[in-house]
């Protein structure tokens, strides 16, 4: 076993994190951790020559919370609370693959209604995440207004999520075997109608209509802007091949022209019952990445509208034992999250908690492409490219 | 015209002071900024001598453009921030002072003895007239100037570009 204090390694590391004076022609620029456009506390150590970036080293770990370690000492229901906080922009989506994994190991059949509710809320989380991206990305390329529009529109979606789950960012709504009865429902005897708050269908329909309108507005306001096009078209081109080799997934992969969506490939939620398009980009540049996300918002809204119409009735919870013990085994469940493929590799030894929980997050793999994409870019492009990857530090560091 | 003369002498004094700072300060950026003040005071002097157009040309071209070019030059040649001990050639100081002092004495002697006159400013000199003369009598030098500028532009670009190419090969 290698000691990390091995002087050899230690020296290498300190060189990388530039705690030494560098006698070169070039400027070593620290972008982050406290920088307006690093989405939290990512740090990039960039070597720049004038405006040109020719080497970038991401330094992670400012938000490392050791979830994988913590998960080893927590029980399955407790971990749901933890995973909520991985990608906090779309908190609900994080729960799904974990819960699905546990259910798969326990061989529990989740009621259809619970699945539908999960699906609706996941898509809402996706919409809210893409809203944040839209606003923040516009801000990063210098447009100051769209973020207010995006936040305002996102509020409607968050309100809906709140009305069902009681939480806006960290719903903690999923239970093994189904979902929790909704927050606003209150005590009632009619078990099958207490799950969703009154007026939820109506409000959702209105809100989703607004989302479609908002996406249209973004297409005109941002996508139609010549300056925005100049800033993003043909900037940061990512080929499908490189993307796959780096494990880049989600909208970024689709923007590179790969029609890949885990919603259709796997069956963690009943997406096969609905009709929707998978938007695909052409060039894999920043504009495509933006465009794919905006189009995805519309598709998600359509899915929600369909799911509302075809909502089955029935119980919210399958029968589960009082003390949840997952049988011995291992499984990997992946889901199409707003940022890309998120998965949990659960290794259970039959106890109350997992023996090992590997969290595969989308942003981690997605930003590992940064050094490659940024080589030779100009400094403003660096921001544009970084923003177009739409990462969340909680999702990177875990 | 009492105030006028006081102002003029005051300007001259400040001019000398800031010019002396240009050549004596040990901070490169301070030297450049002192030159800004020297030029601004020269422009003031020109205004006092009624040549307003030249004064403004001095401001526009020198302060607005040439000094910026100097600042770029200083930044590109990586002048250190703050005092720079290496800036002066100390062993040349005495000889420099001697030579420049001699020149000053010689010039002063010639100028004081050679010219003796009094200026009375009655109005600002006309820019319109200046333009007319410039573009009729001096039309040949005027066109030559465009060639000089073109030559400077092409020369500067060639020099700066060439060395950019060198850098590309050697260092990057």
């Amino acid at each position, binding site marked *: 076993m290698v000691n*990390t204090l091995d002087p050899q390694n230690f020296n290498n*590391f300190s060189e990388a994190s530039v705690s030494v004076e560098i006698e070169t022609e070039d400027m070593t620029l620290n972008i982050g951790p406290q920088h307006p456009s690093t989405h939290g506390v990512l740090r990039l150590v960039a070597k720049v020559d004038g405006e040109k970036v020719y080497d970038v080293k991401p330094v992670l770990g400012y938000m490392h919370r050791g979830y994988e370690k913590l998960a080893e000492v927590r029980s399955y229901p407790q971990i749901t609370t933890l995973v909520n906080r991985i990608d906090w922009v779309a908190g609900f989506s994080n729960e799904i693959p974990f819960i699905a994994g546990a259910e798969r190991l326990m061989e529990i059949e989740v009621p259809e209604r619970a699945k539908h509710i999960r699906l609706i809320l996941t898509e809402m989380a996706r919409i809210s995440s893409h809203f944040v991206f839209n606003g923040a990305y516009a801000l990063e390329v210098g447009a100051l207004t769209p973020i207010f529009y995006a936040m305002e529109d996102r509020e409607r979606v968050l309100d809906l999520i709140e009305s069902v789950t009681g939480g806006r960012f960290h719903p903690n709504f999923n239970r093994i075997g189904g979902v929790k009865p909704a927050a606003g429902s209150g005590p009632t005897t009619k078990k099958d109608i207490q799950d969703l708050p009154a007026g939820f269908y109506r409000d959702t329909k209105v809100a989703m209509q607004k989302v479609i309108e908002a996406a249209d507005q973004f297409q005109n306001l941002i996508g139609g802007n010549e300056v925005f096009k100049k800033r993003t078209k043909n900037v940061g081109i990512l080929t499908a*091949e490189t993307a796959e080799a780096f*494990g880049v997934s989600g909208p970024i992969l689709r923007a590179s022209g790969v029609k890949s969506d885990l919603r259709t490939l796997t069956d963690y939620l009943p997406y096969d019952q609905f009709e929707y398009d998978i938007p695909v980009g052409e060039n894999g540049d920043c504009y495509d990445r933006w465009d794919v996300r905006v189009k995805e918002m519309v598709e998600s809204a359509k899915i929600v509208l369909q799911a509302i119409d075809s909502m089955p009735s029935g119980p919210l919870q399958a029968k589960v034992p009082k003390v949840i013990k997952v049988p011995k085994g291992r499984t990997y469940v992946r889901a199409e999250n707003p940022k890309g493929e998120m998965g949990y590799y659960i290794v259970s030894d039959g106890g109350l908690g997992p*023996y*090992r929980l590997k969290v*595969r997050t989308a942003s981690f793999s997605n930003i590992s492409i940064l050094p490659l994409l940024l080589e030779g870019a100009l400094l403003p492009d660096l921001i544009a490219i970084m923003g177009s990857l739409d990462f969340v530090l909680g999702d990177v560091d875990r | 015209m009492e105030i006028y003369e006081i102002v003029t002498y005051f300007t001259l004094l400040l001019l000398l002071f800031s010019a002396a700072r240009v050549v004596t300060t040990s901070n490169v950026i301070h030297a450049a900024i002192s030159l800004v003040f020297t030029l601004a005071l020269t422009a003031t002097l020109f205004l006092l001598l009624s040549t307003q157009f030249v004064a403004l040309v001095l401001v526009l071209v020198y302060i607005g453009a040439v000094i910026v070019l100097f600042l770029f030059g200083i930044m590109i040649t990586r002048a250190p921030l703050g005092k720079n001990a290496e800036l002066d050639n100390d062993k040349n100081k005495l000889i420099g002072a001697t030579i420049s002092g001699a020149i000053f004495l010689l010039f002063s002697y010639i100028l004081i003895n050679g010219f003796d006159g009094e200026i009375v400013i009655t109005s600002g000199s006309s820019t319109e007239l200046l333009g007319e003369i410039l573009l009729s009598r001096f039309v040949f030098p005027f066109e030559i100037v465009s060639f000089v500028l073109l030559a400077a532009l092409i020369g500067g670009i060639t020099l700066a570009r060439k060395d950019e190419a060198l850098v590309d090969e050697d260092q990057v």
Partner: protein
Amino acid sequence: MEEFLSKINENFINTDVEFETINIKVDSSQWVETHQKLKDEFDLKFFSWLSAIDWDNEVSIGEAPKESVSPSFEIITCLSNVSNNNLVTVSTTISKLEPKITSLVEIYAGANWHEREAYEMFGINFENHPNLEKLYLPDGYEGNPMLKSFELISREVKPWPGEVDVEGMPEEPESDESVDG
């Protein structure tokens, strides 16, 4: 899927299917070849993740495995294809005494950061890795946190890094359960 599975079975000995995921167990000497083969012949170009499991009976936190295991590292990679739902995990076991394995960076560029993570979390050495450095942990951090033998109550070992402690240091070491939940 069936076709793919049979093709896998033809090529690899130690395979099993668990919840639609094909697990291939290989010897650590076969590590690189297996991945090369899976990438070239089975079209598994999407590198999902790489991680490790620390199999140990003597654990300081959590619960020990129900049945005793031989102490070892299990390294797992997950590969998939972007256009179908073929999902393969490849695992190998290496000794804890000499934890090293050949890096996959040559085959899957994305393995870079995952290997760095495994390196700092478990202390596994990846040979031929271009820059095997810490990814998350700060300078001078000692130990490999994801090892089962690593104490989770890190604050007893190291003081809070900030100037002001958010709460007082515990007077005396508490038991693992009470700290960790």
